[in-house]
């Protein structure tokens, strides 16, 4: 197949339309949808509103909740261990605070537990892959904080709760927006490099559903810049951490209080028993479940482990009926399908166009509305662009940014995007980007209050694994904020719990036995197993020929 600057000849013909219309579109603002029209497009085209993709949870505290099939599958899965095989008498780590998941929320929690005077030897951070393999490093666009004089926390509150369809928990939204400026100030003290203009003011850009420019950014590596600074600080603080050791089940005592966890070394395959006075769950999201068959922006280990472990221990969940699809995932080239094309491309002026080069919708609708609008064009009209592998997409006019904001804007502000496409010979300063919605964010999760307490004793929650902060839809820039706000609060609460609970408690897997009993009664077929830990991407060719050899251990 002949490619010119990364695109096929067929695609080039449509790019000609984009180029031809650019001048006319330059200052053209297309109206955003009314609340009524938003509802129509969501009802018809957003996967959340399509009953085909969903079913009710069949057991446990959230029995009856309507969630995506893939989420129900995980919640209705059997444990991956036989609880009778685990020897709980030998405790491998006896700690004060156990933090599960070394993403942004978990790293905040360890730091703030330490700042709140938990001795470092009494903290343990455990994570699935490397310290830093997480969604947090991948965040590109930015982090919201209402700090400018023409902005204020009330407006941020309104934007967040309206974006979440007024279903967010008010106390959580207050915590989110009220702590935001403090988070940015703390980051500055740690040495995070936020973009500033020549007058020393932050560069603050808009995001979908925000009524002020309050997105603080570090080029399009915002998450990476924040995260690597936090990680550097955690290492400076000497906090112990274990990599490649995911938690695979919580431990509880006879009263149902969470008292620790079982870890599993994914390389050596041995397990470890951890006892803790308090556990913080910060395992992030679920993109790798490929809800609705969508590709995802998420990291390799985003498999919803924390939600299912907490659910088995009795924790209440919420808002898992809604899933965030990012409107602009890469639809081409095939190698990077599903990866994120940051919203910042639209924040900086990129428009969304059909095959004919004409704008199809207001580019900065709230995410669910924007995604539904793109799906509508690709499924009910012929105004989409088809790739050689049969994928449908919409143009995102990146070259317009250079016209609006000046030559060099893309390389300066979107260097990750520029690099990602350049690797496949596409120059986004010259040619538009082909996009299609992609699975992006777990809107709901484990219920929590503003001090990060879950509904069960001994378990705190922070980050994407949680539910309630964003209601039914998260706005860009509010989750980098969330992991800092609630990660910090979880660390502080953990320190309090640590001081309150010094008597060692019993370790049992009672809740796992109970889970199995409840599932047996449902007689589900085929049996599934979770936590998933890592998704399966080996090819069928190989999977058909795999065998398990007997292993003699003595």
């Amino acid at each position: 197949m002949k490619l010119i600057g990364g695109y096929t000849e067929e695609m080039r013909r449509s790019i000609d339309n984009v180029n031809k219309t650019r001048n006319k579109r330059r200052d053209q603002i297309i109206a955003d949808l009314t609340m009524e029209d938003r509802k129509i497009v969501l009802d018809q085209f957003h996967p959340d509103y399509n009953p085909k993709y969903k079913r009710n949870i069949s057991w446990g505290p959230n029995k009856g909740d309507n969630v995506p099939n893939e989420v129900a599958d995980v919640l209705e899965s059997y444990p991956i261990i036989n609880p009778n095989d685990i020897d709980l008498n030998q405790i491998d780590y006896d700690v004060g605070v156990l933090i599960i998941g070394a993403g942004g929320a978990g790293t905040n929690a360890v730091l703030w537990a330490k700042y709140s005077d938990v001795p470092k030897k009494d903290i343990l951070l455990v994570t699935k892959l490397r310290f830093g393999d997480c969604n947090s490093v991948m965040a590109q666009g930015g982090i919201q904080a209402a700090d400018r004089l023409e902005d204020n926390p009330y407006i941020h509150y309104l934007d967040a709760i309206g974006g979440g369809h007024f279903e967010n928990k008010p106390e959580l939204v207050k915590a989110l927006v009220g702590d935001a400026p403090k988070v940015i100030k703390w980051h500055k003290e740690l040495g995070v490099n936020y973009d500033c203009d020549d007058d020393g003011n932050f560069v603050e850009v808009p995001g979908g559903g925000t009524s002020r420019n309050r997105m603080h950014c570090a080029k399009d590596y915002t998450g990476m810049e924040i995260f690597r600074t936090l990680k550097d600080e955690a290492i400076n603080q000497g906090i112990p951490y274990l990599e490649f050791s995911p938690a695979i089940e919580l431990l509880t005592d006879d009263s149902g209080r969470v008292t620790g966890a079982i870890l599993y070394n994914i390389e050596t395959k041995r397990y470890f028993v951890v006892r803790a006075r308090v556990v913080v769950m910060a395992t992030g999201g679920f993109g790798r479940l490929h809800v609705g068959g969508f590709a995802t922006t998420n990291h390799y280990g985003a498999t919803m482990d924390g939600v299912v472990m907490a659910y088995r221990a009795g924790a209440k969940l919420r808002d898992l009926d809604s899933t965030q699809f990012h409107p602009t995932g890469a639809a081409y080239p095939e190698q990077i399908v599903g990866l994120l094309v940051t919203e910042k491309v639209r924040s900086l002026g990129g428009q969304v166009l059909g095959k004919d080069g004409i704008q199809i919708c207001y580019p900065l609708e709230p995410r669910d509305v924007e995604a539904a609008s793109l799906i509508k064009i690709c499924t009910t009209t012929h105004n989409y662009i088809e790739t050689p592998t049969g994928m449908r997409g919409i143009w995102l006019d990146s070259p317009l940014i250079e016209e609006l904001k000046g030559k060099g804007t893309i390389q300066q502000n979107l260097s990750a995007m520029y690099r990602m496409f350049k690797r496949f010979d596409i120059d986004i300063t010259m040619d538009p980007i082909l996009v299609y919605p992609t699975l992006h964010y777990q809107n709901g999760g484990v219920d929590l209050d503003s001090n990060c307490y879950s509904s069960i004793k001994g378990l705190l929650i922070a980050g994407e694994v949680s539910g309630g902060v964003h209601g039914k839809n998260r706005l860009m820039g509010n989750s980098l904020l969330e992991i800092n706000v609630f990660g910090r609060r979880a660390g502080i609460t953990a320190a309090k719990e640590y001081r309150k609970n010094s008597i060692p408690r019993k370790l049992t897997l009672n809740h796992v036995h109970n889970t199995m009993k409840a599932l047996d009664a449902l007689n589900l077929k085929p049996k599934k197993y979770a936590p998933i830990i890592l998704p399966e991407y080996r090819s069928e060719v190989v999977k058909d020929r795999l065998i398990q050899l007997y292993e003699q251990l003595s």
Partner: protein
Amino acid sequence: MSKTKSETKQSAEPEKVRIYIMGSRYDVPTGLTIMKAMEYAGFKITRGAGCRAGFCGACSTVYRKAGDFRIYAALACQTPVEDGMVLTQLPFVPAPKPKYKIDDLRPSANSILRYYPEVARCLSCNACTRVCPQEINVMNYIQDCLHGKLAKAAEESFDCVQCGLCTIRCPAEIPQYHVAMLARRLHGKYNIPTPKYLEIRVKELEDGKYEEGFQELMTIDKKKLKERYTTRDFMDQKKGGGDE
């Protein structure tokens, strides 16, 4: 939906290339990334994959091409396979990171040299720059650090995903990616100013200026809240009609 579940999508008769993963031969469809090709071949990756999108540096891979004496390096998740590639992953680089208190340091070359004296041993061989999968001019920022030009070092090193390939190649044994981290933190903390308005807002929040208003927002009924939302003004952005 228009995307299938499996990441390694197969058509009926995919064209194949021959690659060698750690010496063993595999025929894999053309156009896959190195990471997806390994999975196609049957590897369940546990090390050597994190973000799968070019942001975490977990998937450093070195390879040679048929008939070429050079050694190449790349991120496995961002690089397509080529016929005749011989590759192996290097997902972990042992490189100690000294502990420091950022509050006690000054933004100077001395701060860097105190923790990373080996920076002064840079031979200017440029091996680090040549190996960098992000095409960062690594040697330049190391030289900038040596000369106390932290702003330049921070800017040049900014896109570093900390894969550690530079450190493996360096004959002077400099852990460049750790050095860059310190340079950026010093620059961010001491050289980039903090806007006044941030301090003002933090103070207001600490003084409880917004408490009353929050209480109101948290308790008004949904109808009123919706009305406030739909009638809020859009200050910075041009916006069309809709709910304005």
